[in-house]
C-alpha cells in the first residue's frame, strides 16, 4: 500500500478535534460568564478576566492533548481501521470534555455557596 493513511488520519483528526474544541469552548465561554458573574457579584472586570483565563487554559490543555496524542497512534494499514481509530480517539477527547464539563457544573455551584456564604 503506497498511500500513507496515518497522515490522512492525523489531518482528519486535527480538523475534527479543532472544530469540537473551539466550538465547545466558545459555547462555554459565552454561557459561563453568567455563572462567574453570579460568584463575583458587582465585579464585572474581574469576572471577564477570570472567564478569559478559563477559556485560554481550556484551549491550551485540549489542543496540547490533541498534539501530544498524535505520537501514540498505531500504524494504520486499512481504511476500516482508519474509521475505527478516528472514532475511538475522537470519543476519548469528547468524553474527556464531557467529564471536565460535568465536574465544572458540580463545583461551580458549590464554589458559589462557599463564596457567598449562603
Amino acid at each position, binding site marked *: 500500500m503506497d498511500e500513507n493513511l496515518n497522515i490522512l488520519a492525523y489531518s482528519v483528526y486535527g480538523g475534527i478535534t479543532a472544530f469540537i474544541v473551539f466550538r465547545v469552548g466558545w459555547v462555554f465561554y459565552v454561557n459561563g460568564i453568567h455563572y462567574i458573574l453570579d460568584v463575583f457579584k458587582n465585579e464585572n472586570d474581574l469576572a471577564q478576566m477570570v472567564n478569559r483565563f478559563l477559556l485560554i487554559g481550556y484551549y491550551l490543555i485540549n489542543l496540547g492533548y490533541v498534539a501530544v496524542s498524535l505520537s501514540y497512534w498505531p500504524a494504520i494499514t*486499512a481504511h476500516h481501521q482508519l474509521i*475505527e481509530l478516528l472514532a475511538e480517539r475522537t470519543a476519548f477527547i469528547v468524553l474527556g470534555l464531557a467529564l471536565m464539563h460535568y465536574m465544572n457544573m458540580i463545583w461551580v455551584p458549590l464554589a458559589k455557596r462557599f463564596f457567598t456564604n449562603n
Partner: protein
Amino acid sequence: METLEITTVIDPKMIIRAYLIYLPIALLLTYYVARVLFKNGRVFMVDIFRGREEIANATNRLFEMGFYLLNLGFALLILRIDLGGAELFGTQEMIEVLSKKLGGFSIYLGIMLFLNLFLFFRGKRKSKEHQVLTERMIQTKPTI
C-alpha cells in the same frame, strides 16, 4: 498470521459500509433526543431560576452541550465492530451487529433522557422548597 488470513476472507468494504450506516443513525438519534429534551428544558430552567432568563438560558445550553458531549462520545466509542476471529461478515452478520449496536445505543439514550428529566424535576422541586423557606423566613422576621 491468523489475522492476515481473516482479512483476506472478510471483505473490508462490508465493515466500512456498516460504519457508514451506523454513524449517521447514531448521530441523528442523539441530535433528535437532545433537541426534544432541551427545547422543553428551557421551561424548567426558567422555573428553577425563578424567571432569571439569562442564567436559565445559559444553564440549559450548558446542559445541552454536556448531553451532546457525553452521548456522541459514547456513540463513537462503541463504533468498532469486533469480528473476534469470525470467518464471515456478510449482509446477515452486518444487520445483526448493527441492530445490536444501535438498539443498545437507543436504550442508553432513553435512560439518559429520563435521567435528565429526573434532574429537571428535582431542580424544580428544590427551587420551590427554597422559595417556600425564604418566604416563611420573611414572614416570621418581624415577630422576632
